[in-house]
């Protein structure tokens, strides 16, 4: 897989052979995605749909960051409004005589996103940097409060719900058909974002975050440009929200929460904002992590938080960026190999120890009696087992020390990897 590291697509520098490999990999990925439902249970398909939507939503955020260096804290606004728009459209045709092509329902999300994008964009781009971020935050908070009170539009406390109507012989009652609709729209969205990067508009947009002042001196109105970038981002976010409403058949004011706005930011940086598919990768990994782990343990948010912090510190270019760097063919394996392996082992120890202690602690503090046991990997460990505690603490400590020793080297390595074309 070859992804250009460093942000702007220097298409000219990617060799012919690498480009061929790239397209092949893409084709394989698409085929795999199409074939996926065949290998999964209905629950698995549901997970897959959520992953696709999260990936699209994260990509929408990254349009703003990687192009215009705008940190938007308000992605929940187009997401939520996109969701409600699709839901209203669904309700409109619930028992109407005419039928609306069900797979086309998400279009309402795109249109809603565009409208919100123009409005928010025009206002928020008055300011730059942190102020832009705070404006988006404030607008979304207000929207959330509004949604909670406005019963007719947003369903108030309970939200709105609807149903997917059958169309063209398909019932759309099960997740398999929903999956393909979602997949179609996600691939379309991704494709459009990819294509945009190759167009003059994409080139100019990429320069906004790079050197806005220079762009102005070349004669471009950067405020309009930024508004357009916001509109593109919000249109895709609106599509993602619309797809969510399409899938879950409901929406409520909770979609406008701070967490909904934070998710795509976290996922994008986790996956790597410097690569095109980084955010999608980050979204897929973290969403899967959350979905799977929340079934296994009550304190999964702790693990996600720790994982997230570690990745941000040790892998500032994100998981996607790391993959791109490691596969660039310019890695001094002899020098870096041992360090990577050592830190990897340290991380494993740290994780093992921390998980052990956390699970023990959770049971220790929250159990009604101290006879609780932690059942893991076939072992049944008593929460009062001193040896287990000591083992956990020692493992975590050793792991931590190893990581601390190697972290600077590792980070320098990634910094130098950035220079690789």
């Amino acid at each position, binding site marked *: 897989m070859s992804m250009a590291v460093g942000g702007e697509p220097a298409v000219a520098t990617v060799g012919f052979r690498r480009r061929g490999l790239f397209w092949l990999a893409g084709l394989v990925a698409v085929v795999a995605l199409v074939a996926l439902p065949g290998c999964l249970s209905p629950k698995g398909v549901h997970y897959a749909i959520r992953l696709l939507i999260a990936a699209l939503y994260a990509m929408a955020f990254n349009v703003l960051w990687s192009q215009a260096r705008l940190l938007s804290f308000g992605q929940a606004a187009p997401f939520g409004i996109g969701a409600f728009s699709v839901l209203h459209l669904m309700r409109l045709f619930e028992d109407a005589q005419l039928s609306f092509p069900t797979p086309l329902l998400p279009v309402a999300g795109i249109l809603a996103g565009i409208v919100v994008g123009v409005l928010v964009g025009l206002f928020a781009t008055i*300011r730059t940097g*942190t102020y832009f971020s705070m404006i988006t935050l404030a607008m979304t*908070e207000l929207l959330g409060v509004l949604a909670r*009170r406005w019963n007719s539009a947003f369903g108030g406390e309970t939200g709105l719900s609807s149903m997917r109507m059958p169309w063209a012989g398909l019932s759309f009652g099960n997740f398999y058909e929903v999956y393909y609709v979602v997949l179609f729209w996600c691939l379309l969205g991704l494709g459009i974002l990819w294509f945009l990067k190759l167009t003059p508009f994409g080139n100019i947009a990429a320069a906004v975050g790079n050197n806005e002042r220079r762009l102005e001196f070349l004669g471009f109105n950067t405020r309009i440009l930024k508004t357009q970038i916001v509109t593109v981002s919000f249109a895709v976010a609106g599509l993602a929200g619309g797809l969510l409403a399409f899938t879950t058949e409901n929406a409520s004011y909770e979609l406008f929460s701070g967490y909904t706005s934070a998710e795509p930011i976290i996922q994008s*940086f986790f996956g790597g904002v410097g690569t095109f598919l980084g955010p999608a990768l980050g979204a897929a990994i973290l969403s899967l992590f959350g979905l799977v782990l929340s079934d296994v343990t009550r304190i999964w948010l702790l693990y*996600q*938080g*720790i994982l*997230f912090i570690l990745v941000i510190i040790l892998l500032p270019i994100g998981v996607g960026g790391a993959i791109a760097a490691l596969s660039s063919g310019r890695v001094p394996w002899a020098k870096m190999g041992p360090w990577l392996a050592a830190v990897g082992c340290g991380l494993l120890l740290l994780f093992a120890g921390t998980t052990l202690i956390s699970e023990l602690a*959770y049971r220790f503090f929250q159990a009604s009696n101290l006879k609780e046991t932690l059942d893991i990997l076939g072992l049944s460990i008593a929460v009062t087992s001193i040896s287990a505690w000591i083992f956990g603490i020692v493992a975590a400590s050793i792991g931590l020390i190893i990581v601390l020793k190697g972290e600077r080297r590792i980070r320098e390595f990634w910094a130098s990897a950035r220079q690789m074309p």
Partner: protein
Amino acid sequence: MEFVVSSFLNGLIYGLLLFMVSAGLTLIFGMMGVLNFAHGSFYMLGAYMGYFLSSRIGFIPALFGAGIIVGIVGMLCERFLLQPVHREGHAHELLVTFGLLFVFDEIVKIVFGQFAMNYAVPADLNFEVFRLGNFGYPFYRLFIGIVAAALFFGLYVLVRYTRAGLIVRAAVQRPLMVQVLGHNVPLVFMIVFACGAAMAGIAGAIAGALLTTSPTMARDIGTLVFVIVVIGGLGSVSGALVASLLIGVFSTFAIGLDWTIADGLAWFGLRSVAQQIGGLLVTPLSTMAGVLPFVLMLVVLLVRPAGLLGDRA
């Protein structure tokens, strides 16, 4: 009349409490250019530490203890988690603090559970200090105000009149230059971060006894404090004070009032029309109180982004 006086007093004290938390945040922003999302977590940790220690070492010592512990936690976070990502830019620093928010939340839930703690005002501080009509005004609230004022005064003196304060002020404005002059700027950053955290911790320890102590504390106060810092001016401590008091008083009054926009429109004879439209127009001010700070922040951002007393445009 009692309502006005007690609301005003309560608002003032609430504002001073908010200031204790936001002073640290605005200082940290001025210094690092980063909004510390985990600042509310320091407040929460302080409350829990206060609760944990007060039954063991007494209430007042517990306040100090909470401040010290949270300060140390803050220092460790800055040194080991934030310093490595300084060079990556503000976005990465912001995200680390975001991760910390989740981690602290979960740790608190693991150790103390997810329900509110039985953290109450100690008996010897729980008396009436004067009467307002039918009600006695609790001394504890005044106590909060006194502690906050003392902290502000101490901070002011420290920053304005000591050499250390001078170095901090310089480092906030021109970190590179100060480093070139031979000062250990990373150490300065650590100390400022620790002090900010400690103040938030003490605020939590005091407030937690009066208000609820629960895992949602961090988020509840977190966003409010951001708003205050922006309105007051990013980096300006005196701005944070003014904004905290403003918001404290406004919010407290708003919660007690049931005015609606429909009431206002009654002046134009449009009350019944407004009531028919319903929705936002008949929502009482008391329910909208939580939103007022955000509206104010939006206005400030669009009109005068430097805030009330800030100097960066």
